[in-house]
């Protein structure tokens, strides 16, 4: 089927576009040859084509240049080249809105429409009606009437369709041509009949009686045109709907009879019309459904699509009517056209039994990523309906929905899923925790503020009432910290709801250890005492951790009224600075600079607490601790030098590394080597 063109063609630039580098001003310049005589039809044709191509590509033409080009084009009417003339008509239509004074071509067009060249008449009429206003229309009225009943089908069709376009603007004029239109409606030509009936309908549509008469007349005399049949089916449906006539009217019979038309287009139109009628009984639906069922196995994708789309509609109100088609629908699940497959599955979900749900859901999940967003929304809606129908299946549904939520997709799609999950939660208390968990996961990485806030609101509403509300607080709290303003606001409101329900939930979201530390630190900070901060936050435990653990364990085994005594715990074997790093690694690594001055403050306070040092004044600088002994000795000593204005204080920290010995009465005896004063 794919034709190979010879190398010569390829080399001449099969990838190139002769119109690609068109420049508007250059083309308009070229258009000047329209004024030359004799007219060169080939060249002029080519230039007109370029102008129309440019217009079609969205090139903007200013009024002046458009008008100039238009006027130049009118010169081309002097040529008798048919294609050139036809292109002139096309140009008139394309430039009608951008050029001024387009009505100058009226007389030329009128001449052509009434002339001898049949190939010109139809297109000339259409071009003329494009530029005509109501006043001008009256001037050509008799030509229009003649054209409508002309024996040349293209002339008649052109006149009828143009009249239709003018109904809105010039109803009173066109209305006068109803008899001609009526005559044309009896034409054997399938398009003329279609156009004539269409015009008649639009002229009479406000007169229900007239429309009914028209329908009765034409439904009885066999129509030739499948398009006309489709149109009459629609008109009949509209009438049935408006008059709320019962389904035993001749109008309904007509539509029903169309199910047996030999043209598929008509059959489908009739089936679709019946399906869309309100208050259809199962008996009335049956013939329409069986026709659609047949179409499901058509080789034409458009027909399969039309059929399954319509069956989907039926299944919404009358699922039992569609059950007969289940096998045919199953076959469509593997249709290469994913739209058809989706519609088939969603229809089956509406009509299938509870046992088929799992299998169908699995099949959809295999291709849901390939279908367009519009169809993804259709699938979600089907799932939503299914959940209401089979509440027991909510966990399968929920699972599926959460997977869809994780995949890529637009806002409408995600919103449909969220709404579906929310409605499942509302209908099924058992699904609440799962649903809320999925939604929590979603808001961790959700770009749509509207959805995030909606979910946070729901969490605030439903979360506190769950058995373990603390689960949700973490998710909400993260949103307070990380998101945009609107989301943070919603998150805070949600948290407030949790707090209102339950006083203890303040730190409830934290793990035990985290909670305990947080509570502890909060209490210390609330005291607002630097010494306490020093003791409990900055300076870590000076005792050996395994030793502490052991002592605490001893204490719990042997309960006593005395509080636990830290002094009973042996001191750490590792230097204090290292221990401090263990206990508060975050603080040290992140804020080393901030900590250094604080340490000095602490030293200042500690020294100030000693009465002998009170008269020394402010502490200038404290050195870093210097190790005076090796780490493995029985006791380790380190020294810190504090410099005051006129004094030096040497602080010796002695740490006993032996568990079973207690050091008492320590004294320091520094020896001072003579150092010449150099300052």
């Amino acid at each position, binding site marked *: 089927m794919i034709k190979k063109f010879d190398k010569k063609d390829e080399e001449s630039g099969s990838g190139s576009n002769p119109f690609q580098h068109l420049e508007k001003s250059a083309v308009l310049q070229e258009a000047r040859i329209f004024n030359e005589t004799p007219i060169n039809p080939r060249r002029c044709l080519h230039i007109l084509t370029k102008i129309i191509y440019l217009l079609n590509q969205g090139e903007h033409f200013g009024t002046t240049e458009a008008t100039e080009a238009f006027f130049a084009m009118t010169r081309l009417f002097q040529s008798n080249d048919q294609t050139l003339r036809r292109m002139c008509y096309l140009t008139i239509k394309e430039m009608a809105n951008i050029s001024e004074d387009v009505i100058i071509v009226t007389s030329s067009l009128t001449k052509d429409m009434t002339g*001898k060249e049949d190939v010109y008449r139809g297109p000339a009429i259409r071009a003329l009606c494009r530029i005509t206003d109501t006043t001008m229309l009256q001037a050509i009225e008799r030509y229009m009437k003649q054209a409508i009943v002309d024996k040349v089908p293209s002339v008649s069709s052109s006149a009828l369709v143009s009249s239709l376009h003018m109904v809105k603007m010039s109803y009173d004029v066109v209305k006068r041509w109803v008899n001609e239109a009526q005559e044309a409606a009896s034409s054997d030509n399938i398009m003329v009949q279609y156009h004539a009936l*269409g015009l008649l309908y639009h002229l009479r549509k406000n007169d229900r009686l007239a429309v009914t008469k028209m329908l009765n007349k034409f439904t009885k005399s066999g129509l030739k045109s499948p398009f006309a049949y489709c149109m009459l089916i629609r008109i009949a449906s509209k009438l049935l709907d408006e008059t709320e006539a019962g389904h035993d009217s001749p109008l309904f019979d007509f539509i029903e009879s169309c199910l047996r038309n030999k043209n598929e287009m008509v059959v489908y139109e009739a089936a679709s019309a019946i399906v869309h009628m309100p208050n259809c009984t199962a008996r009335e639906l049956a013939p329409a459904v069986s026709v659609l069922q047949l179409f499901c196995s058509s080789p034409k994708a458009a027909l399969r699509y039309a059929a399954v789309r319509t069956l989907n509609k039926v299944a919404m109100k009358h699922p039992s009517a569609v059950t007969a088609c289940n096998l045919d629908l199953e076959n469509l699940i593997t249709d290469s056209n994913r739209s058809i497959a989706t519609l088939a599955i969603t229809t089956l979900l509406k009509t299938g039994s509870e046992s088929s749900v799992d299998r169908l859901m699995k099949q959809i999940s295999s291709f849901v990523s390939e279908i367009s967003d519009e169809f993804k929304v259709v699938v979600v809606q089907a799932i939503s309906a299914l959940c209401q129908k089979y509440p027991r299946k909510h966990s399968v549904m929920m699972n599926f929905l959460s997977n869809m939520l994780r995949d890529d997709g637009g806002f409408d799609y995600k919103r449909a899923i969220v709404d579906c999950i929310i409605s499942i939660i509302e209908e099924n208390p058992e699904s609440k925790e799962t649903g809320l968990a999925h939604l929590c996961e979603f808001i961790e990485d959700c770009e749509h503020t509207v959805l995030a806030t909606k979910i946070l609101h729901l969490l605030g509403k439903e979360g506190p009432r769950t058995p373990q509300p603390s689960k949700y607080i973490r998710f909400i709290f993260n949103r307070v910290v990380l998101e945009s303003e609107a989301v943070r606001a919603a998150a805070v409101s949600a948290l407030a709801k949790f707090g209102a329900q339950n006083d203890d939930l303040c730190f409830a979201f934290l793990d035990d250890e985290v909670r305990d530390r947080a509570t502890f630190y909060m209490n210390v900070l609330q005291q607002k005492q630097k010494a306490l901060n020093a003791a409990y936050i900055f300076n870590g435990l000076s005792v050996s951790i395994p030793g502490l653990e052991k002592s605490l364990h001893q204490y719990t085994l042997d309960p006593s009224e005395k509080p636990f005594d830290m002094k009973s715990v042996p001191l750490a074997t590792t230097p204090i600075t290292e221990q401090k790093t263990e206990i508060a690694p975050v603080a040290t690594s992140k804020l080393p600079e901030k900590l250094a001055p604080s340490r000095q403050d602490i030293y200042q306070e500690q020294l100030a607490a000693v009465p002998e040092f009170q008269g020394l004044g402010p502490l200038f600088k404290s050195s870093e601790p210097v190790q005076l002994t090796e780490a493995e000795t029985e006791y380790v000593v380190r020294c810190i030098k504090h410099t005051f204005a006129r004094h030096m204080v040497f602080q010796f920290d002695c740490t006993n590394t032996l568990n079973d010995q207690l050091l008492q009465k320590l004294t320091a005896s520094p020896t001072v080597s003579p150092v010449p004063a150099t300052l």
Partner: protein
Amino acid sequence: SLSPILQSSVKAVFILDNDGNRLLSKYYDPEFYPSMKEQKNFEKNVFNKTHKADNEIAFLEGMTIVYKTSIDLFFYVVGSAQENELMLMSVLNCLFESLSQILKKNVERRCLLDNMEGVFLVVDEIIDGGVILESDPQQVLQKVNYRVRGESVIPNYQSCHFIY
């Protein structure tokens, strides 16, 4: 809402090349993507969804789209979601068949562009302001009577009256 009656059967028609570039397009409903920007955007979306699929019919942005490809060309006919899909197919088939004859079966980009006036005229004869004007490719060809590279498509046709 009901399907349209005669009017507005076709919302748009366009022909794209295999890079998704517009070669020809007509939009017939002033309320359906009136601006060039919206049109080009729509065409891009439609192309993205269909050029690999080769599936004949799609539903996008609330519109039913029937389409056909040939070598390096893509033909699209767009109708409302309520329109009869077979009606849209008849328009597409008429368009494709008519062009196929005009281009002497070389329905590919270069040939199309070399005969662009014929293509414009064919489209003009099939749809007028959204109304289906003609559905029979033979009728379209007679009305257009386009000469491909100097040869008449229909031999000896000069001024023959239609007999019906």
